[in-house]
């Protein structure tokens, strides 16, 4: 399995902090989510981290077994 991680308010939108998903093209994974959540994850202020490293936000990404993709909304911390 692969894993999606939702930070900040995205956790409330998703209803969970993490979600196990079937590996494969990200476009397919997003298509299986609630459309409103998928739209939020693709929002221009949301950054992505793949396996702990910031990456470009591309729907062309393919998640492999064990991959972790985190969705990071604007921070409000400190």
């Amino acid at each position, binding site marked *: 399995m692969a894993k999606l991680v939702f*930070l*900040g*308010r995205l956790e*409330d939108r998703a209803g969970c902090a993490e979600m196990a998903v079937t590996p494969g093209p990200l476009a397919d994974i997003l298509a299986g989510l609630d459309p409103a959540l998928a739209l939020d994850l693709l929002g221009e202020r949301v950054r992505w*981290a793949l396996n702990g490293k910031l990456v470009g936000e591309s729907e062309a990404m393919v998640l492999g077994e064990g991959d972790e993709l985190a969705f*990071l909304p604007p*921070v*409000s*911390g*400190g």
Partner: protein
Amino acid sequence: MTADVRLTDAAFDPAALLAAFTGQFGGAGGVVSFLGQVRDGGSDGDGVEALELRHYAPLTLPGMEALAATALTRWRLEGLLVIHRHGVMLPGDPIVMVAAAARHRREAFAATDFVMDHLKSDSWFWKREKTAAGWRWIEPRTQDFADRARW
């Protein structure tokens, strides 16, 4: 010199940490510290009962360490301490402490100020507050970006 950078879900004692830090740097002459704590809402009636800071482990501590390393390259410091809580905190609880020791106080002031501005605007923390109405995520403050832009 390397900075002492910590991310913890346990309460910390600012006075004890600052005493230990100051004791390490007898040659410094000057130590500047900033302590941020959860406001007790009494003064302005915002009624915050609790605050939670979430983080993303693979990014948050490495980001704090990179920020501290940048401060060490920009100012001549003898010591730098950065400690940040995550998890659920109550009014009056310490959230963050930054302390810088330097021979020249201007450098200690600038480094502490710089680290705080970037912790506020760039660090991977997400904050929510609990009031009588329940938990609510906090939006980034415009002021935080203005503060960071000073550097």
